[in-house]
């Protein structure tokens, strides 16, 4: 296996969320919400999925497939070497229907389609079947750390030379009932919009790219010395901004306090007020950073200071879950862009 370091490029990044779907309209005209629970804005799925295929798919599967096909199309790759997916809870809406039927009618009258969709890896396998990509296919289900885990898997496989392209995504839906549970369990906090998101990102060693992925690190309960060391290592070439998971909730935002001292003076960005909070939130932050580097600037709407930021060196995406699990992804502009 080759250990030579090839660059990993982000060829495309697509989202369906509470912002306009499959579009970067949010950069100029973001949708604003006063509600604390908002479902995703869906595109017309018929352009991606036939009525026959769609009838066995819940919302999450349709969104996962639409963002995946859209990302593959824009990136110009039909058959990625790997499909790696994150999801906090999979097709929870169908899981609820399946469990409701189980409680109501016992085990005798359960619907096979709901059963099939009640497993977390359905999205990744559906994408594999639909695109006829029969290579590496894996699903990570680590609550709000799912996308980060999927991305890290892809990163490692690129590094050891096992793959040359990967479709990495994260998809989560939020039913009305489930949103109540999620709030009670503290996964979505006061002041945060409980939302849904499906994000697909196409990574490859070559191709016309939005930006490059320069590094991914995951840390569990790191000491302040480790955080200092990792940040110094990842940002030694300089960065334009740091994309944080700050949401406006004081407990959540306190987890990012280390950035104020360790990356003093670096503009901080926030994607959660725009995209809301769900188990695929960090994927929307990664997506937003890739879009900013593609455009060459960060729109004021993302910036904590309310001012736009020019991008020439890179954006560090930071996700902290439950104050313990840390992920860092460094995105850099394409050389010469």
């Amino acid at each position, binding site marked *: 296996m080759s250990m030579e370091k090839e660059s990993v490029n982000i060829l495309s990044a697509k989202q369906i969320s509470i912002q306009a779907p499959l579009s970067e309209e949010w950069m100029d005209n973001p949708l604003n919400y006063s509600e604390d629970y908002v479902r995703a804005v869906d595109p017309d799925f018929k352009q991606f999925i036939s*009525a026959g295929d769609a009838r066995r798919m819940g919302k999450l599967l349709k969104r996962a497939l639409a963002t995946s096909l859209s990302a593959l199309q824009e990136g110009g790759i039909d058959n990625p070497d790997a499909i790696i997916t994150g999801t906090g809870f999979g097709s929870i809406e169908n899981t609820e229907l399946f469990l409701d039927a189980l409680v109501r009618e016992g085990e005798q009258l359960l619907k096979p*389609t709901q059963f099939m969709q009640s497993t977390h890896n359905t999205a990744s396998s559906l994408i594999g079947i639909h695109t006829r990509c029969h290579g590496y296919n894996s699903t990570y289900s680590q609550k709000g750390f799912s996308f980060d885990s999927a991305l890290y898997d892809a990163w490692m496989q690129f590094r050891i030379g096992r793959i040359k392209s990967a479709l990495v995504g994260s998809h989560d839906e939020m039913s009305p009932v489930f949103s109540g549970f999620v709030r009670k369990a503290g996964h979505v906090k006061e002041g945060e919009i409980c939302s849904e998101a499906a994000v697909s990102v196409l990574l490859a060693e070559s191709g016309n790219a939005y930006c490059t992925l320069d590094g991914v690190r995951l840390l569990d309960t790191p000491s302040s010395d480790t955080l200092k060391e990792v940040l110094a290592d990842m940002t030694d070439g300089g960065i334009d901004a740091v994309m944080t998971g700050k949401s406006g909730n004081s407990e959540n935002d306190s987890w990012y306090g280390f950035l104020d001292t360790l990356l003093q003076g670096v503009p901080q960005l926030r994607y959660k007020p725009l995209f809301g909070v769900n188990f695929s939130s960090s994927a929307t932050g990664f997506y937003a950073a890739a879009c900013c580097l593609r455009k060459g600037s960060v729109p004021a709407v993302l910036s904590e200071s309310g001012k736009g930021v020019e991008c020439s060196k890179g954006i560090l995406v930071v996700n902290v879950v439950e104050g313990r699990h840390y992920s860092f992804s460094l995105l850099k502009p394409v050389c010469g862009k």
Partner: protein
Amino acid sequence: MEEMILKLKQEIIEVLNLEDIKPEDIDNDAPLFGEGLGLDSIDALELIVLMEKNYGIKLQDPAKGKEIFKSINVMADYIQKNRTR
């Protein structure tokens, strides 16, 4: 029987999530599987559940489904003769 056929078609459309199909689009004599509606083996399981849940018909031998689900007319006739609710 007309009323029963219409109800059955509506139930099939709902349970199989045939979004773009209306009851009048389904030919009473056309095959449900393969040609016609183009249903498959998972749909057959859904129809077995539908018959038990809505009409109290427990299909002991799933292989029999091939004959019962031949068309809407055949299915409606079977339900009419065997229903317990």
